[in-house]
């Protein structure tokens, strides 16, 4: 059963693709086949699940995109960042990650937060200081920095 929805928005030479749902063995990227727009962005914000079969389908699909296209990944949730860090080819050479979500924890509120970050905010693979929006206290980065931000070395 298909569990992935693909929403496309074409603006002249720019294509914005929103992916919604699960990237798994049933994921079908045929409708995006042979993309040749100059700038292509993929918004992963609404991706809820990804598995090894889905990764395979994604990598196969990336190979069909013209080398001349600029690819940008946006709003990558933690599950996507984890795959980018682990799987060779999930993130194509020359592509960029514009923004993503990083896990933080507020000890004061005892609450986990997924904070939206832009790649340029991360220097030397160190998590930027973030304040809790509820209590204003500094939050702790809730993963291992060297591992979580290792993708920035690939970009």
């Amino acid at each position, binding site marked *: 059963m298909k569990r992935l929805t693909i929403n496309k928005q074409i603006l002249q030479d720019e294509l914005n693709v929103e992916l919604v749902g699960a990237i798994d*063995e049933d994921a079908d990227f045929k409708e995006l086949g042979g993309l040749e727009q100059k700038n292509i962005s993929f918004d992963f914000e609404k991706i809820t699940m990804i598995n090894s*079969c889905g990764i395979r389908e994604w990598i196969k699909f990336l190979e069909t995109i013209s080398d001349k296209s600029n690819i940008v990944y946006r709003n990558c949730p933690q599950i996507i960042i984890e795959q980018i860090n682990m799987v060779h080819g999930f993130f194509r050479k020359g592509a960029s990650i514009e923004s993503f979500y990083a896990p933080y*924890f507020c000890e004061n509120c005892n609450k*986990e937060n997924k904070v939206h970050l832009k790649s340029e905010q991360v220097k030397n693979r160190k998590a930027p200081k973030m304040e809790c929006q509820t209590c204003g206290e500094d939050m702790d980065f*809730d993963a*291992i920095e060297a591992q979580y931000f290792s993708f920035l070395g690939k970009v």
Partner: protein
Amino acid sequence: MNDFTSFDHLFDPVVVINLKQEMVYFNNQASIFFKLPPRVLKSKSNLIQISDSADFDIEAWFSKSLLSFDVQISPEIRLHLPHDPETEYFIIMKLIPVQTNSGANFAVVFHDMTVEKTLHMKYREQLEELKKTHAQILQADKLTTLGELTANISHEINNPLTIAAGHSEIMRDYLTVPNVSEKIPQLQKANQTVLESLERVNQIIKNMKDFLHQSEDQKEYCNLSTLIDSAIEWVQPAAKKANVVIEKQFNDSSVALVNRIKIEQVIINLIKNSVDAISEAGIKDGHVKVSLTKCDKDQQTYIDVKDNGPGMPENIKQNLFKPFQSTKDAGSGTGLGLSICSKIVESHKGRLELIESENGCTFRIKLPLIEVYSYTRNDPSLTRNMKLKRVLVLDNEVQILNVLNAFLSEEDLVFIGSSDPVDALSFLQKANIDLVVADFSMPVMNGSEFSTKARESGYSGPILYMTSSKFIEQFNKDKKNLDISGLLIKPFSKEDVMKTIHAALKPRED
């Protein structure tokens, strides 16, 4: 300080526990796998707090496994995460002892099989669906064939009904005359004609019902010439309408082990295709010849359907047996016929081929000889259990072969049927047969002649005769001269047959 950081390089999640099952280390993959940040994982004392299984006692398995300092592998486990109820994994755990400065520790490596398991389940479901769809396609093709023939079949039914009605009127008229006793012979003749006509109607309807019945893959010993006659009968009305003559040429009287309805469906399809091709080409003296031949060299029986139609262009030939290839106009014919015919013949370990396509077409159905097919069909049971006894039964009557096949199949015996003594002798030399049961009075060779040749060729196993009581004297002679082990007197019961066979199969006391 213990250094387990080398586990960080692994793709699998790894948790290190001590003898008290306390977690002392976990790699980054473990944090991702258990969907818990390192901060939370550090605060948990053991694995049971972060994972659970409804059908496997993880704690008990650890307790037992930690007693021996050996690598242990768990069965496949369905794992849940108490903090994330929507997550379910299928995993295998590997427990690896790791000796450190602080004593014995164990690395628990989680091998995640979830994707593999999911794909396998999907594959099985889709395979079942495909099988059902295939069965529906087969049935649909049958219905299509029946639909195409029905218009002509109703004509066939009308003929005998008209005859029966006519002769019933004759009988009615005879019964009203004063000296009716003088008309008895005519009345009897008219009555007989009525009965034969109604029997003909009954047979046509029975054939239709048999044909439509969703048959399982049940095979039986069948006389191929009878089967071909039946198939020709189906197509005869359509052929007559198209002025096509159907001839038959039986060079051999072959018995085959087939699903009668399915092979009949194949022959009907082939003949009908020929008739249609001739009709569409406007050929005036159209004819179709169906022939039956045995090829000893190939150990096969051939059924050829040859026509004098327009032949077949090269571009059609290439994809001939693929589904949805049709030479007919859209809307007439599904194009499934030859694809299905090919699959049916293959399911009998045979082959459907186009052997001539320029001056008309000749299609050939190749079927293995029944001795070979009976033997190879039983192969899985033979390889499973080499103690199963192989019984070769030789009789030219298919009903006897089918009855004995049914009897022996209920016991742990492998039944190999044969209707031709020459084929049976040839087969005896190639295969290991534990017992031969031979009909005594066969047209080509009687039981004595067969047994003599079998002994001369080196067969030393037991032989039983099947016959009527008038050949008992011959049996007594052969018992001594040809070492015949026993006699089955027709008609026989299942009990008699099995008792005699088991007695013959008992090892002899020298």
